[in-house]
């Protein structure tokens, strides 16, 4: 795929995040589709942090081996990324603090002379980049003014100095395409949940899910949503269960460590048939692992977390648009079937920035919770054919609504009766059968790449775009399940028809999707695994797939 890649890096605290978003927004205004990858250590100040901004004509969500620009605010940035330089890479660097060759910009002294704070170096660098890209100053100034709301004048003044000090290397052509919003996976997920009717979001901060909490907390009033940050994940999940009982659609967000604490509440949700959505942002473990990096290691955990046997919905979106849609679907289905739904994301999706087109989002399944009609005695756990019991919420006259973590009778009162125990366990599992039927009507498995290819790459979550781009050159089929529990086996088998070889691509060390498929009778022939917290580049994956292909 033809694209432009720009890497910008410096110490944590140098404003790399903001700068890379501004680069993205600048190229976005020219009609390009954007993807931004953020790489930062678990530090507030110091260390080395960088972003890669990619712009192309079509949607994307991965990065390549080399970049066209390196914007180095510190020496590490240049030294760590020499392997990303190709024949025409332009290196822009703050020549006051970095030794290099390329476009030397004395940013530190420029900023000092103007009396600006050190952080403004990043904007001065961007001014230089705009010139190097061959963009007119006015174009840059407009985007910068719209986005730099704090200390705007000093930022613009220094960007102009950077611009004047640089030379032009490229001539970027404006694309005749509509300009799309740039949205992180977490922002998209938050909006998808909101759109599907979320009433409350409850979360204890944990990377990479915290930005959902921040995003929704900031907009809680406008959205008329209750956003709460309680004392722990134990409180989070129990509060969410309380909200569900009282009739409010609720989601919680966390990562593996927080999810560990939530498992008792998850199991309770299964028994009490209380709907809720859990956003599980994966990152490398075990334990604290690498807090700010990415992995796909919680699939097995999500599948089996909690004691006892109960139905759960697990979805795994692969980019911002899918996060929006599947977030909404998860909320709707959790309520319809009165069960917990888990949305598996990972740091790459959660904190990656994507071009987002609302027009690509399909309609969510209709909101169709089954409500009590007010006749007869209300039974919270009425055993129906589908297993779904009519809902009523406290405050409704004539209904006594009892939920229970113990095994219970239809009216919610504790029982240890053998016959009822069997009946209620069957009722709860019956909902899974109905749920799977509904999932089969959605596009729960996507097929990309060369549809007739005899080799299929199977992937899930954020490896989607990496596989799509690698598949272009290799002409393989790409099969991506978006629902992982209950597993849409019929759709999967159809997607894999005529395939002679299956290669699973995953960000974990034990091939968790391959294990899941094996359990369902689909044999995976080869696995390509990464587990260093960083996404692979397209070229690396191309090579590994080519080697694995028979």
């Amino acid at each position: 795929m033809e694209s432009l890649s720009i890497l910008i890096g410096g110490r944590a605290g140098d404003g790399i995040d903001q700068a890379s978003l501004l680069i993205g927004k600048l190229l976005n205004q020219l009609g390009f589709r954007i993807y931004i990858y953020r790489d930062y250590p678990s530090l507030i100040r110091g260390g080395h942090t960088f972003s890669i901004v990619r712009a192309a004509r079509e949607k994307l969500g991965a990065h390549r081996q080399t970049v066209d620009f390196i914007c180095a605010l510190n020496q590490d940035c240049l030294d760590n990324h020499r392997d990303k330089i190709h024949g025409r890479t332009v290196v822009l660097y703050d020549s006051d603090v970095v030794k290099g060759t390329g476009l030397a910009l004395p940013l530190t002294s420029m900023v000092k002379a103007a009396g600006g704070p050190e952080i403004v170096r990043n904007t001065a660098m961007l001014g230089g980049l705009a010139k190097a890209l061959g963009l007119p100053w006015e174009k840059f100034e407009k985007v910068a003014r719209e986005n730099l709301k704090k200390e705007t004048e000093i930022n613009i003044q220094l960007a102009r100095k950077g611009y004047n000090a640089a030379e032009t290397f490229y001539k970027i052509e404006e694309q005749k395409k509509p300009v799309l919003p740039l949205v992180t996976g977490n922002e998209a997920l938050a909006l998808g949940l909101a759109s599907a009717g979320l009433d409350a979001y409850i979360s204890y901060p944990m990377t990479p899910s915290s930005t959902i909490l921040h995003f929704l907390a900031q907009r809680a009033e406008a959205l008329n949503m209750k956003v709460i940050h309680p004392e722990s994940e134990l409180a989070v999940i129990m509060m969410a269960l309380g909200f569900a009982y009282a009739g409010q659609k609720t989601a919680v967000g966390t990562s593996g460590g927080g999810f560990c604490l939530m498992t008792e509440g998850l199991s309770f949700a299964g028994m009490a048939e209380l709907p809720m959505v859990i956003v599980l942002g994966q990152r490398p473990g075990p334990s604290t692992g690498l807090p700010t990096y990415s992995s796909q290691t919680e699939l097995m955990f999500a599948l089996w977390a909690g004691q006892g046997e109960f139905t759960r919905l697990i979805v795994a979106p692969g980019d911002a648009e899918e996060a929006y849609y599947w977030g909404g679907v998860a909320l709707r289905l959790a309520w319809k079937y009165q069960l917990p739904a888990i949305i598996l994301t990972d740091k790459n999706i959660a904190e990656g920035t994507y071009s987002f087109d609302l027009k690509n989002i399909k309609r969510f399944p209709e909101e169709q919770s089954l409500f009590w009609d007010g006749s007869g005695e209300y039974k919270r756990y009425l055993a129906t054919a589908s297993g779904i019991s009519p809902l009523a919420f406290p405050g409704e006259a004539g209904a006594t609504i009892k939920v229970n973590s113990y095994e219970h009778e239809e009216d919610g009162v504790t029982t240890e009766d053998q016959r009822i125990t069997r009946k209620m366990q069957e009722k709860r599992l019956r909902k899974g059968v109905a749920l799977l039927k509904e999932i089969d009507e959605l596009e729960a498995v996507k097929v990309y790449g060369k549809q007739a290819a005899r080799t299929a790459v199977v992937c899930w979550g954020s490896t989607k775009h990496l596989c799509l781009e690698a598949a272009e050159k290799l002409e393989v089929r790409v099969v991506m399940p978006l629902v992982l529990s209950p597993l849409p086996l019929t759709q999967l088998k159809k997607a894999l028809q005529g395939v002679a070889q299956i290669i699973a691509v995953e960000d974990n060390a034990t091939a968790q999707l391959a294990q899941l498929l094996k359990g369902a009778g689909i044999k995976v022939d080869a696995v390509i695994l990464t587990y260093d917290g960083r996404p692979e580049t397209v070229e690396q994956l191309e090579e590994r797939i080519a080697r694995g292909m028979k």
Partner: protein
Amino acid sequence: MTQWCPGCGNFAILKVMQEVLAELQAEGTLLENIVLVSGIGQHAKIVDYLKVNSFYSLHGRAVAAAEGIKLANPKLKVIVFVGDGDSYGEGLEHLIFAAKRNIDLTVVVHDNRVYALTTGQYTPTSPLGYKGRSTPTGTHEHPLNPLELLLAAGATYLARGYNARTEQLKGLIKEAILHPGFALIDLLQVCVTFYNQYDHYNQRVYELTGHNPADYNEALSKIKEWDYNSDAKIALGKFYQVERSTFDSFFSGGDTVDRGQLIKTLLERMV
């Protein structure tokens, strides 16, 4: 139908609750707006025995669930039954934070100072040297004074009741329910099977009189009179009551909004 031992203090509490609910209803509270929440333990069975909305929750987690219910629908009166092991042990963080928030809940702690459902182990309020199945030579730790802890945490209503003083208990529970804010009653509930304290309590309890519950320091000194360990007199009644803004009042919900339009506008700003 009830599954408590004959003589268990829980029977008296159940009866008191039946009366309290009937009185509230007679005074105009709609029963459908009441939710009972329980933890896990002998105390928790009470929700099965009352035909009222209920949320039979997990060990230690009743208070957090109750907070969710109250925040979701501030109209509801949420009454939480918990045990001492349940809420002063496993669920202590939630209790402290609920008090800190002054969320409008009523928490009734069935404090029998023993784990009864799991057959007689020590709890956070068992006295030093308590011999239970997990501490056969006696505990080596002092009990917690829960009222002192909750006062420091920010509770705005604190009282102690006793299941053998049902008239007083009824008054306290009703008052706590009507108190707008976080109310906790440490209820001396006797477990006849594993830790029968009737004689001990009967000899020492007295009713608080001439006490000013609005005075923090006076409340503190009365609360510290008996530390759940010494052989002091045991005060029953209301130690503390003040009014302070409640957490739930900040979440009463606004007007409905057109989410679809709002999301479109938000996205337009993200270009």
